[in-house]
């Protein structure tokens, strides 16, 4: 199923009893992964085992040695064609995912092929991004793959290339960067007191988290109860860092395991469903026009 389009019917199945079957099938692949034994070759469909690290997690370093000890899992991606608007065709077919934890924080390294670095938002210009989706509650049945459903929310961590550039450049991610040769007439912030000029950036003044360019993390923590219901959490705890090298994005996304105010803690030894989404800015991906993955299995290695 993972190599074809996910249909509405499939989603209904995942929301119900069939989800147990997905988890069971995943358990079968665990044995296969261990039998292969090559920790560097991504294994299709292998459960993602978050290796316990007794020390600092390499949250800001996708190239750290610690990541090399984590077994990558190859996660198939398909075009989102459940909710309108659809993505007509997938621009990337797979994502490599691996994970580490230190008991306090869970970190995932997500990697996919993308030659184009799209890290500015403009007219008909969209950004690269990746998202991790986790249930807020444990249980045999994962929430609907469609970003949860009313009453069964999901906890989503989204990284955007634009936010990464916000951080890397100190917020220089606007008109002057999109059009480096631009010549401005007098702008509100040239002639008005800052408090008054701020009203000319309405989204920012209104507190929209997307409109803030001076940020501390490239990862946004959100909850959702179905497509179109993304809600920015008032207390943001996720971290991360990304680089694009060799025509590939390497993105670390990390979140405290306590998940205070969001959901049940991600305890060492526990197993969770996890799903992913990838956006390619150069392919006009945004919102629902994205590549999605089916629910995968994530196990946090015991600390002892």
């Amino acid at each position: 199923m993972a190599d074809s389009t996910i249909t509405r019917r499939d989603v209904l199945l995942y929301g119900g009893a069939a989800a147990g079957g997905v988890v069971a099938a995943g358990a079968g692949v665990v044995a296969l992964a261990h039998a292969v034994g090559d920790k560097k070759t991504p294994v299709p469909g292998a459960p993602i085992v978050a290796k316990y690290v007794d020390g600092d997690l390499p949250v800001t370093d996708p190239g750290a040695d610690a990541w090399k000890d984590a077994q990558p899992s190859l996660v198939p991606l398909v075009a989102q064609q459940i909710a309108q608007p659809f993505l007509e065709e997938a621009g990337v077919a797979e994502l490599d995912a691996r994970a580490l934890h230190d008991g306090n924080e869970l970190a995932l390294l997500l990697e996919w092929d993308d030659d184009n670095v799209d890290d500015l938002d403009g007219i008909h210009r969209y950004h690269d991004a990746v998202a991790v989706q986790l249930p807020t509650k444990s249980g045999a049945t994962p929430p609907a793959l469609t970003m949860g459903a009313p009453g069964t929310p999901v906890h989503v961590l989204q990284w955007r290339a634009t936010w990464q550039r916000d951080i890397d450049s100190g917020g220089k991610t606007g008109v002057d960067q999109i059009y480096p040769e631009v010549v401005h007439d007098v702008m509100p912030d040239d002639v008005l007191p800052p408090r008054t000029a701020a009203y000319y950036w309405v989204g920012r003044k209104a507190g929209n988290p997307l409109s803030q360019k001076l940020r501390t993390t490239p990862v946004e923590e959100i909850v959702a109860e179905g497509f179109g219901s993304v809600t920015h959490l008032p207390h943001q705890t996720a971290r991360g860092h990304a680089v694009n090298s060799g025509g590939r994005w390497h993105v670390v996304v990390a979140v405290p395991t306590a998940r205070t105010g969001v959901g049940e803690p991600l305890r060492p030894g526990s197993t969770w469903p996890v799903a992913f989404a990838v956006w390619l800015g150069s392919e006009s991906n945004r919102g629902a026009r994205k590549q999605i993955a089916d629910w995968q299995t994530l196990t946090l290695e015991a600390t002892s």
Partner: protein
Amino acid sequence: MATVRNWQLGRDMEYPYAADRPKKQFTMIMDTNKCIACQSCTIACKSTWTWGKGQEYMLWNNIETKPFGFYPTGWDVNILERLGEQQWDGDTYGGQTIFEAAPEGERVLGWTPAEEDWSHPNIGEDEPTGNAEDTTYIPDNPHSLMWMYYLQRICNHCTYPACVAACPREAIYKRPDDGIVLVDQTRCRGYQECLTACPYKKTMFNLETRVSEKCIGCYPKIEQGLQTQCTTSCIGRLRLTNFLSHPDEVDPRKPADYLIHVKRMALPLYPQLGLEPNVYYVPPVHVPTKYLTQMFGPGVEHAVETYRNAKDDEELLGLLMLFGATERIMDTWKVSGGVARAYDEAGDEIVAVPLREPTFTRPFEFTTDVKGVPTAGYRHNT
């Protein structure tokens, strides 16, 4: 999909949400015949709402020369081409709307302008030619006249907005009190689906705040009973900001109801797209009917004839004279004794305008007195 009534099409149609008409609908009436494309409206809007960094290319209001002017480039011909040839059966639209023609996986048949389409805000200005033989050349005319006219464009604050239909976040909404369509600046996540869906291309993406913005109908003025900036700055006095009643509760005493429903002299822009747009145009009287019908629907000939005869209809003429005569929003009007008077909702008079300005004749030659000597004088350019 819900089934909703679109009075402009004379039929029901499919729309993603159930009909929920506002108490009264913000509307603007444009008399295209009076426009000289001075762009005073454009500048009034720009200097009020969109002079911030990130809004450089935004023109919530613009004037474009038809048939060869567009902002963004090709906005109307692009959607017409995608929709394909469609048919009116008398006053009933027999074709497909952009909601009914939506491809699989989309809520609206749309297209996304490229960056360069937003780079020429006054392309085609005053341009009446182009490929003359195939387009605007009228060989029958004794003067072989080309034609062109100016189209005044703001957001149509549609009854069935395509931007609302396409937004996956439900971040765009229509105010129940006045039908003004707004983007919730805290809820938008910058997907730009509204830019793809709106056939009039009147939602725009702010490059600094990364969310969509659009014409807000000058709602802070509307809430004070005042007409919009583009209306009050118009030196041609061709605009009227007003409210339209529910189509089943037309009140002929109300200016917009009278012009749109009673006189049927002001017509919607591309009604066939199915959005029930709420900016209404008195069509230009000198433009071929075929072209006007494509743009304003099947009521064009009646509208032009009514406008040509307005000089003999005191009630209608009086109302036209009240365009641009006051910053206040007119609720009703009356004409008597050669004077048109506008009233507010309380029935108090807000302005009075004579139908004809008094005329004084001064003779060309006259007799004057130069140092005590009677002298024949004449007037020249004084």
